[in-house]
């Protein structure tokens, strides 16, 4: 089977956090039998670098707070790149730092985790995944149509458009953990209401259900 992966599948895989999502992703990506895993260039060239940059900033923000408890998350130039949910992660990590026996051990663990995840992503992309649909080849009409139904999420619109296009080249299954945006309804509304778009809708599967 050809699996077209949402970015969250990669992030679950590299979490190594014993969660259900991690276990499911790990099992699937290590089942080589007849499986091909695809990721679009939009994820590789745009979303992952942006995500990793934000992760690095989160860690730096936490370290600044560990050094000086009066530091306010997001108050540095870099901190302005963070979303609200990133700042919440920073808060949680800061709280976590208090349960680790000393600051040095906490920095070791947090750095090791962050760098380790970066390396795992790189390894995964290098060894287990095929890249498809260069960004310049994304069908803009398809992307715009999907975008209308995704509450302004341009990233998902590009990724889903890439998946649908690749499905036209050869059958695939879209795989995600996101039940809110990656839905059959959204794709049906976007594609079937637009007579200019000649695409079939691929099957969508959720990692939590396979």
């Amino acid at each position, binding site marked *: 089977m050809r699996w077209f992966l949402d970015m969250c599948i990669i992030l679950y895989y590299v979490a190594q956090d014993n969660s259900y999502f991690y276990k499911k992703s790990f099992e699937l990506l290590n089942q080589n039998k007849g499986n091909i895993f695809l990721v679009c260039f939009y994820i590789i060239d745009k979303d992952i670098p942006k995500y990793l940059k934000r992760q690095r900033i989160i860690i730096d923000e936490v370290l600044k707070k560990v050094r000086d408890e009066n530091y306010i998350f997001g108050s540095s130039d870099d901190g302005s790149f963070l979303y609200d949910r990133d700042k919440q992660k920073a808060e949680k990590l800061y709280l976590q730092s208090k349960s680790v026996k000393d600051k040095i051990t906490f920095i070791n663990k947090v750095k090791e985790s962050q760098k380790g995840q970066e390396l795992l992503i790189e*390894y995964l992309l290098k060894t287990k995944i095929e890249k498809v649909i260069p960004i310049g080849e994304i069908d803009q009409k398809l992307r715009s149509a999907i975008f209308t139904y995704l509450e302004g999420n341009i990233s998902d619109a590009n990724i889903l458009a890439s998946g649908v296009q690749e499905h036209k080249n050869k059958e695939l299954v879209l795989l995600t953990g996101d039940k809110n945006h990656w839905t059959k309804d959204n794709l049906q509304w976007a594609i079937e209401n637009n007579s200019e778009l000649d695409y079939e809708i691929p099957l969508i599967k959720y990692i939590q259900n396979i």
Partner: protein
Amino acid sequence: MKKKDGGGSYSIYFDKIKNFLEEGPASINDICKELKISWATAKSVIEELKEKEELKEIVTSKIRIFKLANDPAFYGVPLTKKQKNDALFLFDVIKKEWKSQEKDKGPLLATTLQKIAVDVAKKCDCDIPVVSFHYGLVVPVVASPYANFSKPTNHKQITKVVIEILPSHPNKYHKEIEKQYSDYRLELFIAKQNILSLLKQCNGKFEKEEIKDSFSKFLLLCPTDSKETRLFSLCSDFIDKVYGLVLTENFQNKLEDIKEGFNILWDYVTTYLFFKEIAPYVRKGKQEIFEYIKSLQLLSKKSNVEERINYLDSLVDLTKEIQLPMDDESVMIRKILSEGAEEE
């Protein structure tokens, strides 16, 4: 306009410009304003002095700045004539007193001279700057034997303190450094020393945990500054790359590269500290020039670090899948880091 002399120069302005530059580097505009001469005249005089190697140009992207070729201030920062004079006097007293009192400890090392100067400058009530530099605190003036100086008003106090302090200095390079780091609690410098000695030691045996601890401690002590935000993030990036090499078991083979890279990072960090700490000593009218010199130096050092970080990244060899630590705290950290993955 005065007539040119036989050598084809506006010699009347030579001394005036040199006197003005004794108070620190200046731009052509500053020279014109101070001497009330035209831009063209100032430029001609400056060019002649440059040819005679009496002036040097500090090239920045925005402005041409000139300093005396023999200006003893580090990086040509605009210290006042008095600050430089007092520092040179201090160095001279130390050298003379060392010869008369401490010659048994051998010829005075340049390091010892600087360390004594710092002790004296800190103890005396004087306007001699003391700032961080690559090997600890320094008086940021080159102790040239050919420099001219005069006795400052508090020369007796300076001489008295020098005599008091000399016996406590061992005049051994490593001991002098250790003594200063410990006397002034220079924790960042101690952390740097610790990293370098670990990197030196681990040629035979690789102590993963110790290496990680030493870099983490360094990061904990690294300066942060809202005006120079890249400083902390570059230190953090550099340490990421070291962790990458540790995690992929490439660390042991790349010790020299890490050491070299770390020295380049250290050069940037201490140059930053130098400019931060010397800023309060710079008088008002010279702040703009100071900012130009500072950004010129920091920019080039920052690019050196960025280049090294990229290079270290290229050394990571990802031929096998790495295993991350599975202790509870590490797992919890990764759980938090991975939260909201489906929203990405």
